[in-house]
């Protein structure tokens, strides 16, 4: 990957404000792919689909040499791929996600949409789990285009108002995943580290390649407030008096230690830990997915 993959992106804040989630997902993914030199299409189906001009990064084994001999131009044969990977996207809908500017939940939802769209484009089967509320919403993985519509529709309806977080019945859902595949967890993980590790362990036992995105807002990263504040917890409503200037360094140290513990736990369980800030580009996250998928392939 290079930096070029982000050049055609619309502004993040603009994307988050667009209500048409399918359009957002498509524009994100298309923009991402247009700068992605290595061809993502490498399905193993034998059913020929079409030719396309050779692009830098394409596997030379896929070049049709006969066509080259006749036309003196390089073409790559494209085949109708078959679905060969099941993916689950676990999106945190707890109230703590509804924070920051840009909003963490909008960022996470857009990422989930784009991820779903990309999966479908890859002929993978995306599934969606919305957790964090008392009851999880679940869409089992399918690779049809209509399934994508359902996924995006569910994402559009999702709202960050849950109070449960990792205490919800996500465990029951995770236990239902039987096929080997890839699981993308999108959450701020602002819970006990033990619970996060427990979730990752469970996914590991379910033979899932776990891609963990910890989404944080710039405010949580920088804590650039000034003066004394009465801070209220978005999930529990608990309040604490804090002097931002005095406490900034301590806060940042505690956050750093927490994230390091989560990352350490994730890496110990073979999960791929990524920290994403809501003011960053989505392409990084999509790239992570493709990298992880290539390993499975």
């Amino acid at each position, binding site marked *: 990957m290079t930096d070029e993959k982000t050049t055609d992106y619309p502004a993040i804040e603009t994307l988050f404000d667009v209500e048409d989630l399918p359009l957002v997902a498509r524009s994100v993914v298309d923009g991402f792919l247009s700068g992605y030199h290595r061809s993502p299409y490498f399905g193993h189906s034998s059913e020929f689909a079409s030719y396309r001009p050779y692009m830098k990064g394409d596997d030379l084994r896929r070049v049709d040499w006969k066509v080259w001999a006749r036309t003196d131009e390089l073409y790559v044969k494209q085949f109708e791929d078959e679905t060969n990977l099941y993916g689950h996207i676990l999106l945190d809908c707890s109230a*703590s*996600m509804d*924070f*920051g500017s840009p909003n*963490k939940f909008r960022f996470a939802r857009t990422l989930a949409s784009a991820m779903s769209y990309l999966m479908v484009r890859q002929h993978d089967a995306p599934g969606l789990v919305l957790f964090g509320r008392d009851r999880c919403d679940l869409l089992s993985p399918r690779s049809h285009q209509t399934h994508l519509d359902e996924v995006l529709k569910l994402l559009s309806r999702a709202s960050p108002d849950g109070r449960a977080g990792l205490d919800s019945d996500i465990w029951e859902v995770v236990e239902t995943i039987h096929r080997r595949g890839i699981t993308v967890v999108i959450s*701020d993980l*602002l819970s006990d580290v033990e619970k996060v590790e427990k979730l990752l362990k469970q996914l590991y036992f379910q033979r899932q390649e776990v891609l963990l995105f910890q989404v944080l*807002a710039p*405010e*949580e990263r920088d804590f650039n*407030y000034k*003066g*004394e*504040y*009465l*801070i*209220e*917890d*978005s*999930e*529990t409503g*608990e*309040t*604490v*008096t*804090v*002097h931002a*200037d*005095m*406490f900034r360094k*301590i*806060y940042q140290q*505690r*956050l750093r230690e*927490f994230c390091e513990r989560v990352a350490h736990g994730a890496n110990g369980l073979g999960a791929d830990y990524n920290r994403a800030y809501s003011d960053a580009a989505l392409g990084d996250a999509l790239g992570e997915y493709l990298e992880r998928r290539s390993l499975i392939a």
Partner: protein
Amino acid sequence: MWNLLFTNAAILGGLAVLAVPIVIHLWFRRRKQRIRFSSVRFFKVADAQMLRKRRLSHLFLLMCRLLLLLLIVFAFAQPYLPTGAGATKEELPEYVAFVLDRSGSMRATDGNAMRWTEALGKVREAVGELSPHDRAILVTTPNGADRSPKWRSPTALKKELAGLQPGYGVADLGDGIRRGTKWLLERPQAGGRLVIVGDLQWQSCRKIGRSAVPEDLKVEIRPVGEDDPFNLDVTRAWRNESGHLKTTITTGRNRKGDGVEAEVTLSLDGERYGAHSVADTSSSREETFRWSLPEFDSGWHRAKITIKGQDDFKGDDDYFFAFYQRDPIATLCLKTSSGNERSRQPEFFLKAALSPAKSGAGSPSRYRFRVETKEPGAVSRFELFQGAAQQRVLMTDLVIMPGLGAVGKELAKSLKQFVRAGGGLVLFVNDAVSPVRYQSALGELLPVTLGRQEEASSDSNGPWRIESFDETSRVFSAFRNRENGNLKIPTFKERFAMVSKEGSRVLARFNDDVAFVVSRAMGQGEVVIVNTSASTTWTDWPRHKTFLPWLHYLGRAVTQRATKERQASESYEAGRTYDINVRDGVAAPRAIIGPEGDRRELESKTLKRVRLRFETPGLYRILDGAGKVIRPIPVNIPPEESDLRTLTASEVDNQLVRSKPRAANAGETGLSSLSEKHELWPYLLASGALLLILELVLANRTYA
């Protein structure tokens, strides 16, 4: 307990500003913003200890600011503590200024004790009446040692008095009262006392009325000495033009002098020379004595005149004097060829007149002549002067040329150069003079155009006499006073017709208006022609008594000695500072030896001008680098101090001018005078400054 007083108590109302930081503190305390955050899990352990610490810091900062404001308001209110332990508002310290006369007259011993001892006793007595917390200041006149006196406790002032001695200068009680009043007026509180202690000598009281004393200041006059003192003093001495020393003594001044025997003695260069007894000491009078002095060598000479008699003041009984005897005027008289008869030889009369003392004993005159006669042909240029044209040094001061039959070219040339270089030339005429040859040879040296020789006939207008002379001229200055001689007595039988040239000045004329004496300046010198002979061939003037002084004055005038001569007799007064010029031609002054033999190095080592202050009377000596005495400096007690007549306390009090009480003039003292007070505001401001620094540090270390 401290009795804290405020100069500007109204400013304490400014303490209301203390509310400002309190309000600001409370206002910002309320402003706590409420925000919603994703999770407070990282803040739960946000230590309350840190918040407590911050609140304490805020409180300390607030206290700091309040204290800072408090100090500033207090400083502006100018608090002060009355000095002295246990002082109350009613027992404020009294400020007393002592004006003490320490002039020369305080050394007088009228009565049984010295005036100074009595004065110190009276000051001590007045100081003893003060309370320990009172403050006193000592102002002396003349002000030698106390140029910047300080307020002291009574005990400290007594110590200061212990080392004090009277001087020899002139007291000015007016100045002392002015300075004492000034110090009292600079005190913060009204009132105060001025105590004047002295002999109230009338000369020292002349300026008392020049400065006003506010009516709220008490004035106490404590006189010392007797009302009726008697003194004999040598008032002054000087050397007249004839070289005699004259001395004026003042005797009596009151009836106590009746029957007192007194004698005045003169010592010259350390040896007793003579004595006069004072005839009358019965009443206030001045008497002048004349001392005929002997011939002196060139240089400085010192004289000491002492008056011996029973009086009340011994300090002025000795009078020191110094005078300078200059070198004789080097005179060259050219010989004429008038035969062997002495009475017809002009040089005989000239030499006899210029150096009249017999057997070479010389003259006591301040202006002496050293006369040498020579043949005109034997005179060389080197006898007149030495050196190149620009730097000629005269070897001869005066050349007198009686009528010569012939004037050689070399002689005429040398004479012209001699006169231009500053020499004096006196020309006489006689039968040998040929107008044509004279004018041809001397040319511009001649102040006149010579005409034919004239002889007075008894039947017409002869013999001629001197009708008029220029009284402003130095040549005839001796005869301004008609009693010194009548110039109309000498008669003149022959003469030349003379017309003065342009630029010449006719100093005297005959009775028929023909020029008799004509002078002309030439270069730096002067030429004078006398229209008669220097012998008795044409006139009988050399036989008259007016000839000698006239010739002496002529010689001094034409050599310009009268103006070039510096002040050659001097006397200085104790207690004063002088800039003294040391005579030219001597080495630079290096040291001065006092009357008691004390030596002091002089700062001026190159200049011939030294600034000296003489504290005691006596004979001082200025030395050069080799230790040689360059000149003596006679220093005497000022004559004002010899006049011991005094005023009474009531007479002095009547002379005092009183002005409005100080309360009306309070504004004039201004803030500047407050700096002298024992105020607390400087400490408050200093503490405030330190507190401000502390506040700045705290404020920067404390989160808002």
